[in-house]
C-alpha cells in the first residue's frame, strides 16, 4: 500500500566496495530501492548480503575503506554518496586516506541531517548507550543538540500559562480536538505547552484522572528572572546565549526540561515508572528497557526516517514481542518511515508494509509484504521461506552451497550457483528488475523471458 506516497529515500544502482588487505569485497552490487514516507520497509537477508552496509550508507556512516563505485542515495533529495562517488571516479588508485578526507567533509554536511531527519537503532543496546550517564540524560542530549528551542519553549510555556489557560487547554484534549489545541496554544503564545500535554494525554499506563491532574499542574511555574531572557533567546534562535554565567544556568534548566521530556517519551513507549527510570544507568535496566531507551533517543526528535539494524536480535522472544508491538504503535502514531533490517523473516512479517530481500549485495525481490510472503517469486526467497522453522513443523529445506565470496562474485546472476532453476543466461548476464504489478518487483531471468534449455 505504497500508492500515493512519495519516497524519502531513493537508492539507484548503488555499488560499494570494501578495500581490505585480504582483497576487495564487492559488498553492494547495484542496489535499487525506495523507501516511502511513513511506511515500514523490511530489509531481509542472510549474513554477507549487504543489508547492514546499506543502512550505514544511507546514514553516511561508512569506514574509510568503503568506496562508492557507482550509484546514488537520495535522502530527501540530498545525494549522500555523491562526494564519495566523485572521488572514486576521479582517483586513479583508491586511497583510503583520501577517501577519509571526503568522508570527513560529508560528516560535516550530514550533521544537519543525522539525529534530526534520520536516526539509527543498532542491535546491541548496551553498546549504544553510554554506561556512565543516566539514560534520561542520553535521551535529553538528542534534544539538547538539535532542538534546544523546543525545550526552552516548553519551560517558558509552563511559566507563562495560568490556571485558566490550562483548564481551557484540557477541554480541547477531552474533546480530542488536537488541531484546536494547537491553535489555542499559538494564539495564547504558549507554544511548547501542547507538546507536554499530548505526551501525558497519550499514555496508557495512567488513569485519566491522573493525567488531568498532571496537565492541570502545567502552569504557574515561574522561571528565575535571571534566565528568562536567556531562555527566550534560545527559544528563538535554538542556540545558547553567549553570556558566560547565564549560559550555564540556561543550560542547566534545559537539561532539567530534557529529563522531563525524556520521561514523558518513555511513558509513551510503555516504560514502567519512567520518572524513576530516567535517573538510572544503563546497567540497571533490563535488555528490553534499554532497547526502549535507544528507540527513545532515535525518535524523540521526530525524525522522518528511522533505520533499525537487527533491533530485536539480542532480545528474548517475549521481550522481542513487546518491542515489535511498540514499533507497530509508533508506526501508527508518527509519520516517520522505518527501515527494519533483519535476518528473521517472521519478525519482519510482523512490522513491515513492504519487504525487500537481499542477496550478495543486490535486491532480488521487493514488494508489498503479503505479496512477497504469500507468493515469493525469486527462487532464493522461495527457498528462504522453506528454510524457516515454524511452530507446526514442516519439512525444512536448506540451500545447498555457500554465499559467494564477494571478492570474486559470480558472473551473471549472483544466485545462479545455488539456484535449482539456473538457465544458461543466468550464468552470463545479470537479470534486470522486472515489475510484476502491484509494486512487486523481482530480479530473475525466470520472469524476464529467459529461455530454459
Amino acid at each position, binding site marked *: 500500500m505504497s500508492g500515493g506516497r512519495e519516497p524519502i529515500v531513493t537508492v539507484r544502482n548503488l555499488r560499494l566496495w570494501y*578495500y*581490505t*588487505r*585480504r582483497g576487495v569485497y564487492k559488498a553492494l552490487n547495484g542496489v535499487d530501492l525506495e523507501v516511502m514516507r511513513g511506511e515500514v520497509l523490511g530489509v531481509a537477508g542472510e549474513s554477507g548480503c549487504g543489508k547492514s552496509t546499506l543502512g550505514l550508507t544511507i546514514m553516511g556512516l561508512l*569506514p*574509510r*575503506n568503503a568506496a562508492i563505485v557507482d550509484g546514488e542515495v537520495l535522502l530527501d533529495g540530498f545525494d549522500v554518496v555523491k562526494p564519495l562517488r566523485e572521488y572514486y571516479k576521479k582517483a586513479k588508485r583508491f586511497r*583510503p586516506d583520501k577517501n577519509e578526507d571526503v568522508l570527513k567533509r560529508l560528516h560535516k554536511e550530514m550533521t544537519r541531517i543525522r539525529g534530526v531527519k534520520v536516526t539509527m537503532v543498532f542491535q546491541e543496546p548496551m553498546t549504544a548507550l553510554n554506561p556512565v550517564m543516566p539514560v534520561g540524560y542520553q535521551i535529553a542530549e538528542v534534544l539538547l543538540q538539535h532542538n534546544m528551542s523546543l525545550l526552552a519553549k516548553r519551560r517558558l510555556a509552563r511559566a507563562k500559562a495560568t490556571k485558566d489557560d490550562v483548564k481551557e487547554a484540557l477541554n480541547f484534549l477531552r474533546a480530542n480536538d488536537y488541531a484546536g489545541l494547537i491553535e489555542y496554544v499559538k494564539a495564547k503564545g504558549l507554544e511548547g505547552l501542547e507538546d507536554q500535554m499530548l505526551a501525558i494525554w497519550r499514555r496508557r499506563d495512567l488513569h485519566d484522572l491522573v493525567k488531568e491532574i498532571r496537565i492541570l499542574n502545567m502552569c504557574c511555574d515561574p522561571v528565575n528572572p535571571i534566565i528568562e531572557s536567556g531562555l527566550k533567546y534560545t527559544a528563538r534562535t535554538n542556540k545558547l546565549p553567549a553570556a558566560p554565567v547565564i549560559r550555564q544556568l540556561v543550560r542547566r534548566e534545559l537539561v532539567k526540561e530534557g529529563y522531563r521530556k525524556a520521561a514523558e517519551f518513555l511513558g509513551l513507549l510503555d516504560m514502567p515508572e519512567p520518572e524513576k527510570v530516567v535517573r538510572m544507568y544503563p546497567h540497571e535496566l533490563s535488555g528490553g528497557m534499554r532497547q526502549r531507551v535507544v528507540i527513545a533517543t532515535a525518535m524523540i526528535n521526530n525524525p522522518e526516517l528511522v533505520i533499525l539494524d537487527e533491533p530485536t536480535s539480542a532480545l528474548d522472544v517475549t521481550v522481542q514481542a513487546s518491542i515489535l508491538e511498540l514499533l507497530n504503535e509508533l508506526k501508527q502514531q508518527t509519520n516517520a518511515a522505518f527501515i527494519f533490517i533483519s535476518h528473521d523473516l517472521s519478525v519482519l512479517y510482523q512490522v513491515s508494509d513492504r519487504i525487500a530481500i537481499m542477496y550478495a549485495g543486490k535486491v532480488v525481490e521487493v514488494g508489498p509484504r503479503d505479496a512477497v510472503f504469500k507468493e515469493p517469486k525469486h527462487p532464493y526467497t522461495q527457498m528462504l521461506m522453506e528454510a524457516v522453522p515454524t511452530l507446526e513443523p514442516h519439512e525444512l529445506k536448506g540451500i545447498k552451497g555457500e554465499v559467494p565470496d564477494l571478492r570474486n562474485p559470480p558472473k551473471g546472476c549472483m544466485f545462479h550457483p545455488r539456484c535449482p532453476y539456473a538457465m544458461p543466461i543466468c550464468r552470463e548476464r545479470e537479470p534486470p528488475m522486472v515489475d510484476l504489478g502491484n509494486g512487486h518487483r523481482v530480479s530473475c531471468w525466470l520472469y524476464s523471458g529467459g529461455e530454459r534449455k
Partner: protein
Amino acid sequence: MAKGGLTSRILTPERKLSLQVFFSNKLAVVGLVIVLAYVADALIVQFAPWLIGLKHPFEVIPDYSNPVPQPPSWKHPFGTTYPGIDLLRAVIKAIRLDLGLSVVVVVPGALLGIVIGIVATYFGGWIDDVLMRLTDIFFSVPYLVLAIAIGYALGRTITSMVIALIIVWWPLYARYTRSVTLQVKELTFIEAARAAGASNYKIMFRHILPNALPPVLVQMSMDLGTIMIVISGLAFIGFLPVANIPELGYLTTLGLNYINTAPWTVLVPGVFIVIFAVSVYLLGMGLMDVINPRRRSSL
C-alpha cells in the same frame, strides 16, 4: 599463488597477510633491519670473529702507549677512548655481549613468568592468590634497586647480574600473561577441551599458551631493548668490578673523565644502546600491528 605445494603451504594467505601488514609499516621495517644488523654482529663476533679481523673478540685491548682519547679518523672511525681503545672494534664486540646478555635475561625470565602466570590464572583460587601476592611483592620494590641488592648479595659478577635481573623481571611476565590468559580461559574451545577429557596440563599448554603467546612475544622483543639499557646502566654505575669487558655501559664510563674534551667517548657507546632500544621498540610496534586482528582486515 600459482607456485607449487610447499611454498603455498608455508606461505598461507594468513602468513602473507602478516608479512603485508608488517612491511607496510616503514618504521617497523627500519627497526627490523637494525635489529638484524645487531644480531648479525653478535653472531659473527661469536662464531667467526676472524671474518672481520678481530683477534680478541671477547675483551677490549687497551693501548697504553696512546691512552688519550683520539677523535674519529681514518684509522679509528669512531675515535678512541681511554686507555687507547679503538671504539669501532670495542662497540662491535660489545654489541655481542650486550645482546647476548639481554637474551639470556629476557628469555628465561619470560619463560618463568609465563608458566607461573598461566598456572596461577588457570587454577585460580588460593594458588592464584599466593602467586599473585608474590608478584606484588616484587612489584612493590623498584626493580633496579632490587636487582642491585640481589646482584651484590650473589657477588658482583656477570652471572649474578643476569640472575638478579631474571628474578626481578619474571613478575612482569606473570602479570602480563595473566591478563591474556584470563581472556583466553573464557573462550568456548577451552570448555570443549575439558569436555573432550583433556587434562589441565594439556589445556594450559596446548590450548591456552599458544593463544596467549603472541602478545607476550611482542613484549619480549621490546624488553630486549629495556634490558639492554638496564644492563648498561648497571655496568655504568660500576656494578661489575672487572675491567676491559666489551660492554656498552662500561665503555661509557671509560670516557667520563674526558667528556668535555672528547665527548665521542661517551656518545658513541651510548648512541648504540639507544639505537638498539628504539629499533627493537619499533619492531615490537610492527609486530603488534601484525597480531592485531583489526589492523589485518582494514587497509
